[in-house]
């Protein structure tokens, strides 16, 4: 019976597995596209974003995968549990860099809770207008940062996507944001040598023991001192959009 059941339910989405990091890790680059310092910039930026807003955004770069990029991004989000399990406020940015003749692909997958703030059409727009132009030139870091510049405030609820559409083409805002973020980054990294997981909000370093009972902390994490360092169990329903170049 079980055998028949297995035959009837091939799980195409699960056939592709990307190992889940043990702790919340914003950047996973399997393609060696980003330099170490670029990765640590994005890591510290998204860790900070998570600390201050509870939204988890992950950026994943893969050379190859099976199937449609949208379903791969969705299944990574779901399996890793990106975002909080109550708010489902995770975002997965999956990038397949261009390699030789093979075109590149990008998908911004939104958790259930982010679908309203970041509708598919906006994901598409952000992909095509903020990120892919830089990817096309081979500047992946810049594309990711430009994308995050727009995604972060929308996901955090600082401004709505309608405002983003209105502001599009306004050349003043982006440089100001970038300047502020670079300044923030320099300030932050001057205060600590960037060790991705080592600094809690209050600024004291703590160490996460390996194989700690992390998963059991999930869900009931209020007041747990480890709140914020694991994936939250957020779920994804196939929202989001992307593009190719």
């Amino acid at each position: 019976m079980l055998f028949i059941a297995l035959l009837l339910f091939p799980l195409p989405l699960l056939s592709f597995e990307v190992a889940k990091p043990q702790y919340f890790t914003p950047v996973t680059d399997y393609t060696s596209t980003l330099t170490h310092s670029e990765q640590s910039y994005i890591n510290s930026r998204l860790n900070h974003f998570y600390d201050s807003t509870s939204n988890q955004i992950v950026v994943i770069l893969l050379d190859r995968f099976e199937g449609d990029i949208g379903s791969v991004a969705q299944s990574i989000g779901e399996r890793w549990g990106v975002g909080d399990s109550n708010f489902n406020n995770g975002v997965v940015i999956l990038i397949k860099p261009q390699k030789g003749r093979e075109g590149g692909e990008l998908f911004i997958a939104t958790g259930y809770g982010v679908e309203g703030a970041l509708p598919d059409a906006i994901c598409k727009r952000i992909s095509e207008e903020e990120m892919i132009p830089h990817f096309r030139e081979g500047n992946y870091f810049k594309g990711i940062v430009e994308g995050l510049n727009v995604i972060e405030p929308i996901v955090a609820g600082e401004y709505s996507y309608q405002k983003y559409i209105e502001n599009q083409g306004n050349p003043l805002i982006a440089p100001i944001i970038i300047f502020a973020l670079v300044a923030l980054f320099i300030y932050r990294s001057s205060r600590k040598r960037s060790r991705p997981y080592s600094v809690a909000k209050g600024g004291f370093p703590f160490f996460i023991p390996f194989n700690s009972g992390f998963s059991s902390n999930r869900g009931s994490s209020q007041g747990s001192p480890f709140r914020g360092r694991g994936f939250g169990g957020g779920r994804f329903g196939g929202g989001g959009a992307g593009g190719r170049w």
Partner: protein
Amino acid sequence: MKSKQKTNFALIAIAVVALLFLWGKSGYNRMVKLDESLSTAWSQVENVYQRRADLIPNLVATVKGYAAHESETLQAVVDARAKATQTNIDPSNMSTSQFEQFQSGQQELTQALGKLMVVVERYPELKANENFRDLQVQLEGSENRITVERQKFNEAARAYNTEIRSFPKNILASLFGFEKRGYFEAKAGADEAPVVTF
């Protein structure tokens, strides 16, 4: 001596009954839980199909403005939508034939939409229209969501069916009237996301 045996027997009987009760209780509660999650998954499936259906009037209106000649294709979409939204299923009482009817209705709509999306390729002005492009993205997103929710429903149905059909819980299940539920079959092409490429 005899009375002692009797009390022993009575104690054992009570213990057995108590154990049976506990087993039945936990088994029953688990089935209820799986049943509930199956219903939730089903309502999500209906939601995403509804979401797609809701896009269609706007889509048809937009396409009409640019491609009035394609009234036949457009009418097919409208008809398929009307048919697909007719079938409503009560998740707690889902018969296989109802389920198949629902599936085939949605499948027809998928095909009609697919044809429409092929036809619009001939209208560059339409394809450049911002409103239409947003609709295309939303439609694509709906299809993605449909794939995901169908898959999640199938997983829930599998968990439920496995639970109620495995021995000895099947006795409990038939006692309380838990029945096997349908799922989305992976027929050729039916489980694949409808291809809507642009």
